[in-house]
């Protein structure tokens, strides 16, 4: 190994790396993407349960209604809304708009606020529906 290679820094140096709104939202896009991929497996299970019968459907529903299940559903909903809103931001960049830093920060915060608001809204509707169907 040459001396030049040995001196090369690791980039970004994670131990001293200051998290910014830009980098945090970027990694969150991937994180929520992974969670949505796992969620899509659950959608396949939901379709299979619908095709199989009331017993398996009931078991799946009991899992959703468990406190941990509800927590997962909230995380799943947030992942969906976040990935959707931030995805729109990515598509905007792909079209060549919104690259200056003030706009990047503004759209970033808009994504955070709207994805939280949409998650809360979905949560309220969900809890109302639990009461209606119960």
């Amino acid at each position, binding site marked *: 190994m040459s001396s030049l290679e040995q001196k090369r820094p690791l980039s970004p140096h994670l131990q001293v790396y200051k998290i910014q709104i830009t980098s945090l939202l970027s990694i969150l896009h*991937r994180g929520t*993407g*992974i969670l*949505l*991929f796992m969620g*899509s*497996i659950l*959608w*396949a299970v*939901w*379709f*299979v349960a*619908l*095709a199989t*019968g*009331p017993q398996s*459907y*009931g078991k799946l*529903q009991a899992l*959703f*209604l468990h406190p941990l299940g509800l927590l997962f*559903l909230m995380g799943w*909903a947030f992942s*969906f809304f976040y990935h*959707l809103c931030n*995805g*729109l931001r*990515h*598509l905007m960049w*792909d079209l060549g708009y919104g690259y200056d830093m003030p706009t990047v920060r503004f759209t970033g915060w808009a994504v955070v606020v709207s994805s939280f608001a949409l998650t809360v809204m*979905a949560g309220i*509707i*969900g809890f109302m*529906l*639990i009461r209606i*169907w*119960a």
Partner: protein
Amino acid sequence: MKRETDLHRAKGLGSAKKGVGHWIAQRVTAVALIPLGIWFVGAFLLLIFAPFDQARLWLSSIWVVTATILFVVALFYHGCLGMQMIWEDYIPHEGTRWGVVLATKFLGICLSLLSIISILKVYLSA
């Protein structure tokens, strides 16, 4: 100007010249998933706590079934492309990376097929 030898590319070390197709497919499925995703997640929220018969009734319309199958295809396609990107970024070992990407695609194809067959079974028995 050519920047790599034919041997280099043949060994899989250079650009496969397929990156653009992946990039475009990711955007096309993303755009398709905006209306399809909002629609399906809305319906799923309304049905997830509903009784069995109520949920099955939803899949008795040819329009709903068609849109749901479109959603499933776009979803697993987009999901596999995204997971492939993540694996390719974080798995340094070439063989492992290749195997994991292939396994992800296999899983995506199996799950979308399983979903489509289940949806059609509900629709046809309604």
